[in-house]
């Protein structure tokens, strides 16, 4: 993984965007913030405003109504930023790709850097990705 956040990678602030998903990935994302996975040891925090964020985590297939909101929120996040598509639906639309109110994966709307597949994606996968962004060698000692 390319550490494009530079020195900011030691304090990654996440903003979560639910683009119309079933809540499975949202709940797994919230579970990734709980003591079992403890992202705060990497300096990771969930922030309420996109202006404070470094990383945008998108879950859910993008529905037609939230597409504009996704673009606006992406624009509001200052550079350098990283976009993580969390879950199969955010990667490619998943099982909803043929539904009439969904557009597809998040990469139809904004550029995506990391796609984490899984239905729902496991919270430990998010931790793995964040650890790589941080610069930790995950296979060795943490």
């Amino acid at each position, binding site marked *: 993984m390319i*550490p*494009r956040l530079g020195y900011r990678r030691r304090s990654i602030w996440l903003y979560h965007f639910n683009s119309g998903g079933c809540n499975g990935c949202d709940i797994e994302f919230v579970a990734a913030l709980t003591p*079992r*996975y403890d992202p705060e040891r990497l300096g990771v925090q969930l922030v309420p405003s996109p202006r404070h964020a470094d990383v945008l985590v998108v879950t859910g297939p993008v529905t037609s109504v939230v597409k504009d909101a996704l673009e606006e929120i992406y624009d509001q996040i200052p550079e350098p930023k990283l976009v993580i598509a969390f879950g199969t639906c955010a990667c490619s639309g998943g099982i909803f790709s*043929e539904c009439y109110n969904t557009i597809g994966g998040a990469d139809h709307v904004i550029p995506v850097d990391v796609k984490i*597949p899984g*239905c729902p994606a*496991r919270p430990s996968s998010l931790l793995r*990705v964040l650890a790589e962004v941080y610069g930790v060698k*995950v296979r060795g000692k943490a």
Partner: protein
Amino acid sequence: MSAYIKALVLGVREAFRGRITEHLSSAVSNGFARGVPILESSKCLGCGLCSRVCPPRAIKMRPAGRKVVGGREVPREEPSFDYFRCIYCGQCADVCPAKAITMDRRSPVDVVNITAPQVLILGAAPQVASFLVIAALVALVYWLSGKLAPRGRHGPSAREPFSGGVPMSSSRYRYYAVSLMAFVLFLLLAEALCFLYLLASPNAQAFAVLLLAALVIYLQGLWVSRRWAG
């Protein structure tokens, strides 16, 4: 008062219980997950049942060589999995009549390359991209000026750019060493400045500055060669 004592007891008890936080390097894959479907090509019959049954239509049948059926050669198809559309339900492995699909019980991030599709030269870090672009541009400039330089009396084509067409020879090397050095130093200085600028603000304007720097380097090269030739 009892509430405080209860809280104290709770705290002491929890201090001696093991932590519930998972080690960062430990089980992303714990062996219980349903896993990732992997095809074993040699067993596949090409029946297409997995593709028909896949809920998100993540399996597409692709032509894959030929096989012999009843003494004749017929085209063979094989499923190809789109792991970013797969919901990891395992239905394909369940219905496969030849048991050619096995579920690798690791997590998708361990099996699928999750950043590969996005790593393009322009998607790479701006510093790396800019360095490569400068290097490519300078090489292009070098090659172009070699083509555009006037033909020397001693040979049909110029062999050394910025030299006015005189072919490179070891005996005359010292004549163009200095200007070449100046050119290289200027190039390095320009690149260093661009790097610093990109470190500070990686965006499109910085990229334009890079291209401008490359142009300036080219012009400098021309000036050096003219001065040398003249």
